[in-house]
């Protein structure tokens, strides 16, 4: 099985090529192609995962490009993390493929949509089985392309266009960091191979400073992809894409790639305390920062987007606190419940044709299936006990505490409170109370959309139990098995943390219920008390405006300056030279005045000059 794991990404690639070429003819039928091929890779990845549970890591490579005596290789590797990611990605992708059959129904670019999904899935699967940094970067960019295409799927919408462009460029800024980092690393290690890099890092053949530098640069790449502060602004805008896309790319898989990258390079990061600290701080800050914005957003998808950002921050915090398992664990659970939430949100939007939660409400009765599923997701993300999110988040908090990042720990706790609050605010505003706008013929989505949600719903509940302090930490033990540099499978932490986490989340839920469910607490008590805070939060701390003002205008100004240079200096010099030549010609032809005697005189003067020069320099007056 594992020997042929390389085939897994090829199924979606096949679907992409096939649909791009023949999609027009197939129309709606193209959905089946996509679904079947992703199913194939899902099945195959499951088989690979099961085999990997027992068998050792498998790695195969071939030469891709020769530079002088250096050989760059390409291939694939199946270790615990890769196997796990394969399953997560192909599973979510498969579900989203299915879901889209209903959601995108009737769109005239239906086949194109599936083709893009295929492309993205291919890239994402390729990313997670890459055995070296170069190949990772290769697919890293390709997933970016997939995300770009899908965000801009409604290309005729100016917002979509802007969002797509923004997403691509912002992530690219991060990617450059990654590129620099890996090239520097290459000249240190002499290879892009993960294991060789780790070996070198352990052997201490790389200076500490260099390790820190490269690690941080690579982390910059992760910041870009995983929408961490300060490169997070593209992720909420990315919600312009179709909702299934948001579920697949901007919740479950691609945005998690940053976390995956840090996890994959974990030994490198652990080799530098500074790097780890940076990761942790950025993570924690992003977590609280995004959560605070999420408190006040009105667009259902944006709320979810900010929650994604903050959850990713959690994962970073975990990794930054040496909580390898915690990070990966949360990555998995988050993939499930966040995908669920998005799909459910999509189902809601599908039903009411708006994304503004102010116009929703009272959908609980109307959407019999979507409602409960959304609730499950909400509970999971809020970290309510017995749901998957509870366990993973708990792991993170423990890791943070155990690693001694007390401040970060408390930040995370507050973030947890916020999360619980805004998620339930969202839930209540959408489903509880009465409709705040007249919504005709609202009906539950077709089963092709609900089924995937059900599957995810189940997973959102049970996924947590693969790694619990009570029934054993199978996942953790398996993940770190045979690789001491990844830390322990399970970090023991004081029991009160779990209690605190629970209380906090319940508090959040309770407050949300007071304000939006029971309405005993007026909604705008925050708005009225601190309008400034509210505006600040609602406008996402004016970060976009800030970038517009500094970076974008800066670039524009600089370009304008260069253009000035181009037109006046460079062109000017050229024209000047030409002018001189022609004016000299003019001068010359002035002498050519038609007077015979002038010509004779010229000759005589010439002769005189020659003779004088000769007399002065040459023969005689020496």
């Amino acid at each position, binding site marked *: 099985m594992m020997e042929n794991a390389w085939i897994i990404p090829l199924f979606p690639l096949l679907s992409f090529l096939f649909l791009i070429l023949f999609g027009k003819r197939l129309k709606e039928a193209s959905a089946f192609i996509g679904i079947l091929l992703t199913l194939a890779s899902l099945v195959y990845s499951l088989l690979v995962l099961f085999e990997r549970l027992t068998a050792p890591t498998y790695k195969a490579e071939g030469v891709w490009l020769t530079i002088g005596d250096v050989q760059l290789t390409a291939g694939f590797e199946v270790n615990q993390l890769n196997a796990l990611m394969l399953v997560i990605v192909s599973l979510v992708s498969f579900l989203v493929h299915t879901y889209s059959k209903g959601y995108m129904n009737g769109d005239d670019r239906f086949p194109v949509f599936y083709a893009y999904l295929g492309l993205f899935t291919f890239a994402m699967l390729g990313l997670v089985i890459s055995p070296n940094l170069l190949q990772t970067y290769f697919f890293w960019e390709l997933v970016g392309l997939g995300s770009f295409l899908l965000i801009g799927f409604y290309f005729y919408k100016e917002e979509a266009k802007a969002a797509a462009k923004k997403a691509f460029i912002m992530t690219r800024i991060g990617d450059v960091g990654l590129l620099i980092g890996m090239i520097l690393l290459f000249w240190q290690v002499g290879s892009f191979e993960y294991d060789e890099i780790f070996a070198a890092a352990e052997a201490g053949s790389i200076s500490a400073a260099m390790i820190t530098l490269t690690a941080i640069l690579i982390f910059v790449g992760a910041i870009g992809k995983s929408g961490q502060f300060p490169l997070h602004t593209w992720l909420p805008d990315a919600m312009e894409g179709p909702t299934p896309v948001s579920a697949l790319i901007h919740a479950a898989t691609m945005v998690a790639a940053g976390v995956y990258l840090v996890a994959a390079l974990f030994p490198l990061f652990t080799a530098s305390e500074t790097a780890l600290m940076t990761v942790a701080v950025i993570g924690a800050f992003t977590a609280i920062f995004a959560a605070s914005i999420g408190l006040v957003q009105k667009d259902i998808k944006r709320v979810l987007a900010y929650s994604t950002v903050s959850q990713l921050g959690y994962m970073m915090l975990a990794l930054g606190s040496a909580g390898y398992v915690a990070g990966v664990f949360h990555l998995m659970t988050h993939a499930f419940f966040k995908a669920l939430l998005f799909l459910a949100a999509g189902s809601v939007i599908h039903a009411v044709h708006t994304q503004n939660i102010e116009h929703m409400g009272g959908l609980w009765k109307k959407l019999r299936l979507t409602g409960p599923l959304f609730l499950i997701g909400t509970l999971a993300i809020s970290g309510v006990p017995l749901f998957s999110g509870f366990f993973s988040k708990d792991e993170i908090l423990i890791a943070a505490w155990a690693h001694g990042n007390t401040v970060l720990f408390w930040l995370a706790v507050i973030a947890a409170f916020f999360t619980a609050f805004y998620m339930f605010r969202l839930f209540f505003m959408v489903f509880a109370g009465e409709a705040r706008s007249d919504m005709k013929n609202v009906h539950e989505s077709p089963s092709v959309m609900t089924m995937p949600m059900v599957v995810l719903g189940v997973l959102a509940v049970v996924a947590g139990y693969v790694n619990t302090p009570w029934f054993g930490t199978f996942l953790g033990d398996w993940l770190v098995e045979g690789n001491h540099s990844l830390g322990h499978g399970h970090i023991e932490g004081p029991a009160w943390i779990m209690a605190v986490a629970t209380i906090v989340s319940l508090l959040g839920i309770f407050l949300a219920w007071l304000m939006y469910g029971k309405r005993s607490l007026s909604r705008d008590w925050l708005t009225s008390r601190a309008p400034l805070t509210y505006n600040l939060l609602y406008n996402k701390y004016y970060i976009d405006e800030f970038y517009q003002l500094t970076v974008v205008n800066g670039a524009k100004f600089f370009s304008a300056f260069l253009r000035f240079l181009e037109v006046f200096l460079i062109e000017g010099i050229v024209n000047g030279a030409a002018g001189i*030549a022609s004016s*000299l*010609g003019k001068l010359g032809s002035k002498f*050519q005045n038609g007077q015979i005697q*002038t010509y004779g005189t010229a000759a005589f003067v*010439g*002769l005189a*000059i*020659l003779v004088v020069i000769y007399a002065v320099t040459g023969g005689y007056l020496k």
Partner: protein
Amino acid sequence: MDLETLLSYEWSIMAPEFIILGVATALSLLDLFMPKAQSRKILGWIGFAGILAALVSLLGLVGHSTESILFDTFRLDSFAKAFKLLLLIGAAMVMLIAISYELNEGLEEFRGEFFYLFLAALLGAMMMSSSGDLITLFVGLELLSISSYILAGMRKRNLQSNESAMKYVINGGISTAITLFGMSYVYGLTGTTNLKTMAGFLTTVYDEQHIYLLGLAFFMIVVGLSFKLATAPFHMWAPDVYQGAPTPVTAFLSVISKTAGFALLVRILFSIFANTPSGDAEGMPMILTLQDYIAFLAGATMIIGNLIALRQRNIKRLFAYSSIAQAGYLLVVIATMSLFMFDALWFYLGAYLFMNLGAFAIIQHVTHKSGSEDISQFAGLYRRAPFLAIAMAVFLLSLAGIPGTAGFIGKLNIFMGALVPQEGHYVLVSIMIAATVVSYFYYFGVMVQMFFRPAADVGKIKVPAALTAVISISIAATILFGVVPNIAFDFLQGNFNQFTDFFQ
């Protein structure tokens, strides 16, 4: 000298000159006795035949050993042969151009004179290239000059023609006087007018005074001859004269008298000054100390010619400046004095002969069709006469020194000669190349007219056979020598054994 000595001379080596002379006389008599009504075109054909005959006889002499008769006043060395070859080929083509020169006013009744004066001028040119004595040199020079004064004024009812002739004769007189003055000093310092004995005598001159006087003579001769070459400082007459003179005459002046001028210059400089001590410590020959002055003149000529040409609208004026520039390139050859000098000079003059005469053939035809000489007359030529346009393009490209044409190989040869010496003439080469680039502007300007601009009148242009011949020959030669130049070089090296006999 008595009859024996006179008969003892091998007169056969003067055959070409005799033929030309004979034909010229014959033509003058014919012209006299022919009925007025009859067209004189026939005279032109006779003259052409004569030139061909001379050419044949010269080719017969090519293998002939170096010979000099009449007390060394007339030498037949490889240098003379090589240059006479150019002169005769050029003359034949100019003759063809002249035959097809149609004008309603001015020339018609003088056509006869035109032909034999032309032959007289040619004779002068030939003497210049193969005489071993100052006196014969001078007489040849004047024969050429005086005939061409009249030729320039041939269209006597045409004001411009008169004026150009006047300018020509005045400037010519001045230049003659200057040259002659220089020569008189050389004679005074050597007591002989024979170049060879002169050279021999001069090797022994060490008196500062004398050397300085020689220097003066050198400058006077160079400046005086620069009139014939139309190079700085005596170039300014050229545009006016070229513009006013009938086109065949312009062609003649720009090619044949230039070639003869170079022949004369080389002859005098290198036989008189080559091994004259310059009086400085290293005992460097005088010529090398004077090298830089020629280089200076060459640079000036190239720059002036190309820059002023930029502003010309009149095609003949344009070509006047262009030929000034070309003369500048040729001066570079002389200034550098490398071991490639003779080849380079000869080859470039040959290339220049073909490309320039071809161009003038076309210019004559186009301008005559429309009566105006503004370059706008070339507008849309590609539509009206594709053959002419493409031929003209080839000639212009060759003049601009674009690869694939003889002009390029010629320039290549010049550069090489300039760069081979220990301290290469980098400045001169740079000036020359820069000047070449400047020349792109006006050469391509004509092409832009021919190919890009719409024609004023779209009537097709018919080309008379004679012109077609000239143009075809020129185009063939220009491309042939551009693609397989070794034809020329092999001929040169095979027959003229390196011009070693030049100094004996």
